[in-house]
């Protein structure tokens, strides 16, 4: 009955808005259903698009369309000399959403910040286990080891103490898992024994407030009039959940939605020539690569890795697998990321030289495995096809390839095996726009047997990226990461294959949408032509 009255009220609210002159409703044909509306327990972009992006704000934010970190709920911050203490000065007068299910009595303050982080960090926090205790990003970004303490200095000052200097921390705090929840709302739910509602009926300080969710079908939001960043130009935001990419295109063309994510690569050309559609694109913040297991013979020999790199015709892969919607990769980080070292020369496609180098390394009649993922990912839409092309390229230099594949979960498991044979297709999409998120996570010594699929632990490289994470001077960090890329290229633990391009088709009526380099879809600041 409660739900009924809530829905009725929401209906009346929406009806009221609809009758107001020219209410602008923006419809987004999203690709899937959110797992919940509290972003912190989850790790999928689909969930973040529906929760953290519209409903919540964070201490720091990513500037729209970039990976620049700008002030959010923290108006400013000081960092101690040694880089381990961050003092955040919070914005005053920030309102939480007022909805049918919650009316805040106070503005946002330091208690909300402490609550939002402590529930993920402290195993004894009463909220730690409420959503299964799977705080995926908090652990994934190594926060339990980085954070020493989070303290309230006064109502509008929070002190974050780290165990060691960590320059990417400001970017981490702009990520979805660091969204700020209302402590007052959480307390109310706890008192009523309705903890799961925190994940279903969200309250935040973001640009849109939650109205209703019909599972697997529709999510409704409305612009939050008291949003600290100013009221949005659109009045209502609706997610029409549409899992099939071809159907999303049809809906866009039929005017049933204004914007859609993830078109099939095969549909991109047709969309480009469609007059009713505008197609935006941006180089994705990702990398698709082939990781040699550098712990196993003969891939422990850099000459073998170099030779195999030279045997791959990457342009042919871009044409066949990405159908042109990607670019050849020479570095482990994408070109849109700061510190990208453009002076690096890629290993040339040269089968003859590759043969010679293999002979020099004393490798004859090599037969190896190439692992191909069973799923389509942004950085690799068709790993099987890619593996076949690599197989043919390697055959040209006398290397026999057996392609192996497992079901995705099993693949992920076996990919972490240090004894794994051969080379593995894998990839990565950036979380926070910081090079550390690629170089240290994917190639640092601590990732061996985990996210470092090449099991490559190079002292020189590791020292460079470790130092770069600890210093806060941008110029110095840039230099260190540039040097790290030089070491990477010289040592060739991977064949860097491609960075894909993200395409976002939208109606011509959409004004000022910015494609997010981090791959999310956010609608603050967007408008619709009358």
């Amino acid at each position, binding site marked *: 009955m409660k739900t009924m009255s809530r*829905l009725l009220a929401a209906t009346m609210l929406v009806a009221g808005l609809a009758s107001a002159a020219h209410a602008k409703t923006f419809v987004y044909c999203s690709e899937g259903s959110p797992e919940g509306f509290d972003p912190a327990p989850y790790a999928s972009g689909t969930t973040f698009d529906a929760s953290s992006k519209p409903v919540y704000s964070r201490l720091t934010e990513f500037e729209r369309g970039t990976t620049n970190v700008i002030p959010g709920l923290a108006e400013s911050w000081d960092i101690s000399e040694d880089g381990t203490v961050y003092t955040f000065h919070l914005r005053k007068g920030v309102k939480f959403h007022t909805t049918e299910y919650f009316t805040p009595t106070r503005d946002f303050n330091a208690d909300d910040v402490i609550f939002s982080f402590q529930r993920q960090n402290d195993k004894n926090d009463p909220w730690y286990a409420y959503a299964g205790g799977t705080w995926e990003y908090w652990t994934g970004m190594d926060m339990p080891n980085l954070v020493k303490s989070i303290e309230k200095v006064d109502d509008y000052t929070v002190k974050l103490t780290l165990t060691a200097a960590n320059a990417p921390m400001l970017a981490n705090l702009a990520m979805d898992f660091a969204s700020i929840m209302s402590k007052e709302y959480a307390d109310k739910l706890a008192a009523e024994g309705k903890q799961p509602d925190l*994940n279903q009926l969200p309250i935040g300080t973001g640009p849109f407030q939650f109205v209703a969710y019909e*599972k*697997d079908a529709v999510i409704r939001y409305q612009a939050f009039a008291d949003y600290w960043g100013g009221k949005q130009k659109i009045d209502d935001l609706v997610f029409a959940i549409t899992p099939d990419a071809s159907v999303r295109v*049809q809906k866009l063309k039929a005017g049933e939605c204004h914007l859609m994510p993830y078109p099939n690569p095969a549909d991109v050309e047709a969309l480009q020539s469609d007059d009713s559609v505008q197609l935006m694109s941006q180089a994705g913040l990702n990398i698709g690569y082939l990781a040699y297991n550098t712990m196993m013979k003969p891939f422990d020999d850099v000459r073998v890795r170099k030779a195999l790199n030279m045997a791959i015709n990457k342009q042919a892969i871009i044409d066949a697998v990405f159908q042109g919607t990607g670019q050849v990769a020479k570095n482990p980080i994408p070109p849109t990321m700061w510190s990208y070292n453009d002076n690096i020369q890629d290993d040339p496609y040269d089968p003859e030289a590759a043969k010679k180098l293999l002979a020099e390394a004393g490798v004859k009649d090599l037969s190896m495995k190439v692992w191909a993922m069973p799923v389509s990912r942004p950085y690799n839409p068709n790993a099987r096809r890619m593996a076949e092309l690599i197989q043919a390229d390697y055959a040209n230099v006398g290397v026999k390839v057996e392609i192996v594949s497992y079901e995705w*979960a099993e693949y992920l498991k076996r990919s*972490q095996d240090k004894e794994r044979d051969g080379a593995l297709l894998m990839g990565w999409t950036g979380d926070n726009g910081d090079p550390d998120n690629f170089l240290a996570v994917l190639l640092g010594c601590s990732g061996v047997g985990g996210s470092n699929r090449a099991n490559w632990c190079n002292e020189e490289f590791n020292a460079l990226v470790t130092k770069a994470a600890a210093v806060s001077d941008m110029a110095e960090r840039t230099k260190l990461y540039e040097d790290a890329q030089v070491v990477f290229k010289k040592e060739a633990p991977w064949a860097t294959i491609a960075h894909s391009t993200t395409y976002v088709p939208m109606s011509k009526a959409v004004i000022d949408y910015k494609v997010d380099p981090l791959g999310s879809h956010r609608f603050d600041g967007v408008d619709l032509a009358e």
Partner: protein
Amino acid sequence: MFGFILRRLGLLIPTFIGVSLVAFFFIRLLPGDPVLLLAGERGISPERYAELMHRFGFDLPLWKQFIYYFTDLMHGDFGTSISTKKPIFNEFFTLFPATLELSICAVIFAVVLGVPAGVIAAVKRNSWFDHTAMATALVGYSMPIFWWALLLIIVFSGILGWTPVSGRISLMFFFPKVTGFMLIDSFLSGKAGAFQSAASHLILPTIVLGTIPLAVIARQTRSAMLEVLGEDYIRTAKAKGLSPFRVVAVHALRNALIPVITTIGLQIGVLMAGAILTETIFSWPGIGKWMVDSIFRRDYPAVQGGLVLIALIVMGVNLVVDMLYGLVNPKIRHQR
């Protein structure tokens, strides 16, 4: 009749136990587990992996896990989804009305077109109608659902603009859920155009989901009719001077319907399989798509609970079909 129902109900108990066993072990036979999928490309440390497996109770011996799960089932607890953290029972019955509504429409579509087509094809055996209808049925039966659905969308929604592309109702309508059946709820909402919108959204998915059952029912009706039409009592009826319509509609059809009803009951399983694809394409918020998503996420509780609930429903439907069968054919209900 009462004894007949009791006997049928008694059979449900071993079936239920069997289904719970299969549901439990089936999802665990698939390689990989939910924790690995949660971690994705990032990978996971052995300690964290062990911690999460323990949290979900997946580190217990299988037999123990099964006993806990079965005990919970007996208490009506179908578990909690790993992904959404919500009770499976609620998740299931939030989505089930959408699947049921679509399935009922598809069955009605299949029966209303299939039975008459089969009857006419049988009566006019070897005529052009017979050949065309049976050839069409064969094509309908063999058509990939995915392809058929996209074709219909492109033609009727894209080019002609007659039907909406996907969804259950136009987004401009927003009213409280009463029954979960969009046709009924839209009618109850009293909003102008809501019912029409819901109905127009049903057309294409109904056709897509109903195509295979339609083909099967048409062919089954035809062969059952042919058999019956050759019986002595039909000749007698004709000899009595009854009108051809009466002979076919009353004397022949009534007997021919017995195997047809069984066929319709059996189509429920086919509908569930078809619903998975149909729901995905038409963005239909039903249980078919939910089950597939849960399997991909290795959401063990959701898959187990969902399978058991589906099995319970199919068992219920079969029971009703059996009872109908008993009503139509007294021979069955008096069998010992």
